[in-house]
């Protein structure tokens, strides 16, 4: 089993961890998170501007395109701290869009978009459809040639932050091949985006109706790299969500501990009851395993074979441990846990959302099994 990776860190990663820890904690107190739930945009544009200024969107973009020239490994501590502080922005989706451009964009496409992203422009991916499959190659939306352009048709679902994104990269079938179309949001017809009700109230998601949308031939990513793009995007998404969920698991465990250390029932601090204490230890153990896998996945990013195993392990462990820790947090908060005011539900909902986006733990394990045993 030589596709099991190791663990390690880079200096830049640890520096970014320090900066992100402070930034996300300071800029995203929970009162602000809750205020943004009722906000249309769903995030603070000022903070988004700062994220751009900090260069965080440029981390995994080569210097030639105005980026920092590091890798996804250095994106991990930022996504982790964002998840920990429930700081929702188009950061993850924009990073993924850049990865798609890097994997399959022509020189011209990369030159057109990557510098803008590096400077703070939001972008997103439109990959999901009504069939509900996690397999990114299962695409029913289609494009047909019409002169020098392609007429698109069908609906994409769960297009996160689409109203903020200037660029939307959508998967479509053209001539029986999986292709990716670069769509400028400004060119979308009126009503092409419908805001969706999603389980994670801190995020924003849209259904994208492609009927009536056309793109020029030159706005398609490389026809020969469809498989590469999918693989890159799937792994990068797994890594980013694993990071967010791991940070979230840490937060919800700390939130639970805080309650267990202060709440009294039957004249005793409830954290002294083993009925609450021992399951919390078990959840903590699972969280630490998730974090270990997360930094192993960051370290193994880009290593052929090992990268995918490490990312899927991180994603599976993060999804299970975040879900379980948040579920127990609701329960252990008693009556208060059942209210919207208790933060445990924010985390529980976010864990469901992440699983929906990248594939839940059983899905990750089914993929892993093939990599490990066959």
């Amino acid at each position: 089993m030589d596709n099991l990776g190791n663990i390690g860190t880079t200096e830049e990663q640890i520096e970014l961890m320090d900066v992100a820890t402070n930034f996300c904690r300071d800029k995203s107190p929970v009162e602000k998170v809750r205020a943004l739930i009722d906000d249309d945009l769903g995030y603070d544009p000022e903070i988004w501007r700062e994220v751009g200024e900090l260069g965080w969107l440029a981390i995994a973009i080569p210097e030639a395109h105005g980026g920092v020239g590091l890798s996804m490994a250095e994106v991990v501590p930022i996504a982790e701290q964002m998840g920990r502080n429930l700081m929702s922005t188009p950061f993850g989706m924009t990073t993924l869009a850049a990865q798609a451009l890097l994997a399959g964009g022509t020189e011209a496409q990369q030159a057109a978009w990557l510098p803008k992203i590096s400077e703070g422009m939001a972008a997103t991916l439109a990959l999901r459809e009504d069939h509900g499959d996690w397999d990114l190659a299962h695409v029913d939306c289609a494009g047909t040639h019409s002169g020098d352009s392609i007429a698109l048709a069908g609906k994409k679902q769960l297009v996160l932050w689409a109203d903020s994104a200037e660029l939307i990269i959508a998967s479509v079938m053209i001539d029986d091949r999986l292709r990716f179309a670069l769509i400028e949001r400004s060119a979308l017809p009126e009503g092409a985006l419908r805001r969706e009700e999603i389980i994670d109230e801190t995020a924003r998601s849209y259904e994208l109706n492609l009927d009536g949308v056309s793109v020029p031939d030159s706005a398609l990513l490389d026809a020969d790299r469809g498989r590469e793009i999918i693989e890159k995007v799937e792994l990068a998404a797994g890594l980013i969500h694993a990071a967010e969920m791991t940070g979230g698991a840490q937060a919800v465990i700390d939130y639970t501990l805080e309650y267990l250390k202060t709440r009294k029932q039957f004249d005793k601090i409830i954290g002294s009851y083993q009925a609450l204490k021992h399951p919390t230890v078990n959840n903590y153990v699972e969280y630490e395993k998730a974090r270990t896998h997360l930094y192993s996945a960051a370290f193994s990013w880009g290593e052929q074979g090992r990268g995918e195993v490490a990312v899927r392990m991180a994603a599976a462990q993060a999804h299970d441990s975040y879900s379980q820790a948040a579920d127990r947090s609701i329960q252990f908060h008693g009556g208060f846990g059942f209210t919207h005011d208790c933060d445990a539900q924010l985390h529980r909902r976010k864990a469901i959302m992440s699983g929906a986006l990248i594939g839940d733990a059983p899905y990750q394990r089914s993929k892993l099994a093939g990599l490990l045993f066959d």
Partner: protein
Amino acid sequence: MADKPDAAELKEYSEAADAWFKENTVRDPGFMLPLTFMEVSTDEQFDFLREWQRKVYEAGYLGASWPKEYGGGGLHTDFQRAATRAMKKYDAPIMLNAIGNGWAGPLILDLGSEEQKQTYIKGMLNAEDIWCQGFSEPEHGSDLGNAQLKAVKEGDEYVLNGSKIWTSLGDRAKYMILLARTDFEAENKYKGLSFFLNPMKIDGISTSRIKKLTGEYGFVQTFFTDARISADCLFGGEGNGWSMAMKTLEYERGAKVKPVGGYFVKELDVMQIVELAKNSMRNGKPLLDDPVMRDKMTQYMIDIQALNLNNTRRRMPQLMQDKPMGLPLMNKLARTELIRELTEFSLGFQGTKAGYYVGDENAVDDGYWHRSYLNSFSATIGGGTSEIQRNIVAEHALGLPKTR
């Protein structure tokens, strides 16, 4: 009270009930119907269910075996059982007035004065008078015996100060069964408590709605500020509040007073989830063809079938000799935890669509599963958390020593 029923009469009644519910049951009024009385959130839900209960009562299918002189049907319990069966058969909406009919009613029938029976019973049956329950307080969720809401006797009144929480229908209720402290010097915390049939629509009582983790509203916090109630509201005598409260819990578990009938909480229909799994496709194949899902689903079927059969086994003394309190005491724990697990499990069927929630047209079954999962905590927390239930089973069924 009625004799053993005449078989022909019972049959006729059963058939009539069947026909009635077949004809009158509305399953889709155009908005989501609450699965439990704790989930009533909007006015339209409340109005619909109140009207529904009145209709069922007036047709003779609720309280059919309660005494005729107070508004009941005066029939043998087998009649009410037949009516309830018919409700279940046609998946009828829940009965709304759970605390009135399930808790306060039996208590009043059992121990109340003639006047109290005349005053309260009929109004709770026809849902004219909605009842709520005031046991829990913000600082004492699990430790009910530690309730601190103060009831001070002044002349022929009690003056109430304090707060109650997690009160389902608290903002709609006319009455509350209230656990309050009348004696702060009592030799132990339990003996200081008294029990009241408390009017809600009076000065000094206000409620504030609590938003649930589902995003809906379903219960309130109630504030008492120098609220004055008649001393006649005291029930069971000063200092007997704890034993009155415990009695209501016994009625809930089904005790000597004949059950009012119907149901206040819809059971999860296992076939629904099997259908979901069968109809969910993953990579072109039904999810239920996935062996890992099948294995888990099978285990849930084993669990559900056991709990359903337990309800029958509980009534078979020949299979209940060893640890006779085991099955009755474990029921709430096992059932509520199973529903939580099962509804959580159902999210995994939905692939990317697990991202949707109630209100989105792309949501599977209108978000029913997500809402059911989040709501499932009301049952694993409310009415004694699962952790408390495990203590109860350990101490009262298995004879293990107390933890505290």
